[in-house]
């Protein structure tokens, strides 16, 4: 069905009893042209772009849980394109442009809100680094503004400008950045893909790959039976190593837990997204009023979707250093999600050494903002067997070639990215 003011009015007149399912709850067929493993944002976006842009409509998305049960519903909903290195800068801007037209493309309200993303700086050296980052963005056609303390005092008078150790000196603002409603993003892609004939199959866990005599992947074994496939794409960040191991692959990835937090609802306080530059703390305010915030990953390998207290303490200390008054606000909920931490902090979108198997992985803790572009370039790779130009550097063999994309310059230590 098509959503509009008229469909809303019609449903309202009948007491909201005639809404159809947002997407078809499909059962697996014997064979698909493309099977996408993983019904998160990236997998669903891949399926939608395959059907809408590349004319491949005989597609299935396999999800071991239900749509929205994994990281799609666990992130802190931030969208931005303020990256500094070749490979990342253009890719994330492609994503931002796709966010800007997503609701029209999908006929679904994903509540994209360009309320601005502000990275604060606390020293002269950090100001210079942010000026450089802003310039990199601007020469690539991305909006960026370097704000001084006077501008910030007007905008955010409650910040701890005179902190003895980390005074707020200014910030780098991307006004086109902001937030989106994360559940609505997966629901929207599921809705639009399903309308084009894509089968979205929930409670269907992949348990192995079907290979022919030459080793080519020709399908998947699942908890709901064998499903044949012309090509198989993996979009299972968090579990990439486990799924790849079924095809005999080892990846340059470790799985780590990242926590996120939400406070009780308060009146409008934080206008956009802001990040503390002297520790790791970032915050925005949801439309319901809760402060949504987070910080570093816990730092040890984990597949448990929960973290430990030291990081919680560190994140809250960062918040208190930046906005002392939030000490009066109570923490409401806290949860964890599993991140594919790659060896250079950047993603991998590439063919694998196994014929017929394609990989979309290594999103670290930045996968949400990448959702539309990740789907688009992965669909491009699956449909045409060649990388999209904005994903041309996200190759699996880049570690072997010494062509890392390491924004933080940390080297091959995944828990430091």
């Amino acid at each position: 069905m098509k959503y509009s003011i008229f469909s809303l009015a019609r449903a309202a007149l009948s007491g909201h009893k005639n809404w159809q399912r947002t997407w078809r709850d499909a059962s697996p067929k014997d064979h698909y042209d493309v099977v996408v493993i993983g019904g998160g944002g990236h997998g669903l976006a891949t399926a939608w772009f395959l059907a809408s842009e590349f004319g491949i409509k005989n597609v299935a998305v396999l999800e071991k849980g239900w749509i929205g049960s994994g990281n799609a519903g666990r992130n802190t909903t931030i969208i931005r394109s303020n990256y500094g290195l070749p490979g990342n800068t253009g890719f994330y801007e492609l994503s931002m442009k796709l966010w800007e037209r997503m609701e029209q493309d999908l006929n679904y309200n994903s509540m994209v809100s360009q309320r601005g993303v502000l990275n604060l700086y606390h020293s002269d050296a950090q100001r210079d680094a942010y000026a450089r980052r802003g310039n990199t963005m601007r020469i690539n056609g991305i909006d960026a503004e370097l704000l001084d303390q006077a501008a910030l005092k007007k905008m955010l008078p409650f910040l701890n400008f005179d902190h003895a150790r980390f005074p707020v000196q200014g910030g780098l603002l991307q006004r086109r950045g902001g937030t989106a409603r994360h559940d609505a993003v997966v629901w929207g892609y599921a809705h639009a893909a399903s309308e084009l004939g894509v089968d979205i199959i929930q409670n269907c866990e992949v348990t192995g790959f079907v290979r022919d005599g030459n080793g080519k992947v020709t399908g998947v074994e699942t908890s709901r039976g064998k499903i044949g496939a012309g090509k198989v794409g993996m979009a299972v960040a968090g579990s990439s190593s486990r799924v790849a191991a079924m095809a005999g692959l080892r990846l340059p990835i470790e799985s780590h837990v990242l926590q996120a937090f939400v406070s009780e609802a308060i009146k409008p306080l934080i206008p956009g997204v802001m990040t503390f530059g002297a520790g790791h703390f970032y915050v925005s305010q949801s439309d319901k009023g809760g402060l949504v915030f987070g910080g570093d990953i816990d730092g040890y390998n984990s597949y448990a979707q929960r973290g430990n207290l030291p990081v919680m303490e560190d994140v809250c200390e960062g918040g208190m250093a930046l906005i002392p008054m939030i000490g009066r606000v109570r923490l409401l909920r806290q949860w964890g999600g599993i991140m594919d931490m790659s060896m250079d902090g950047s993603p991998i979108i590439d063919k694998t050494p196994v014929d017929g198997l394609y990989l979309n992985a290594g999103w670290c803790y930045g996968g949400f903002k990448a959702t539309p572009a990740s789907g688009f370039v992965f669909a491009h790779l699956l449909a045409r067997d060649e990388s999209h130009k904005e994903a041309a550097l996200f190759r699996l063999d880049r570690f072997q070639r010494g062509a890392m994309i390491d924004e933080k310059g940390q080297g091959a230590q995944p828990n430091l990215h």
Partner: protein
Amino acid sequence: MRIVCPFCGERELSEFSYLGDAKPQRPVANAGEDAVYDYVYLRDNVAGVMAENWYHGGGCRAWLKVTRNTLTHEISAVEPTAGAGAAKVGA
């Protein structure tokens, strides 16, 4: 998660830093590029029980080999890493 350091007793997690899987071994000096690539970049990324290197920087500054389940965070064994830090003194 708390770690029972063999030298200091039970201590909170924030005293320790994490290096990672204890399985990869540094290749010999004249090993080929593939062996170095494997050691530096590729990981089993175990879902289950794994031996790991932790450093007790907020205590005795010993390197420890911790056996831990990555699915549950349950720690089943902690022992000094042979020949490192306080373990060297203790040996």
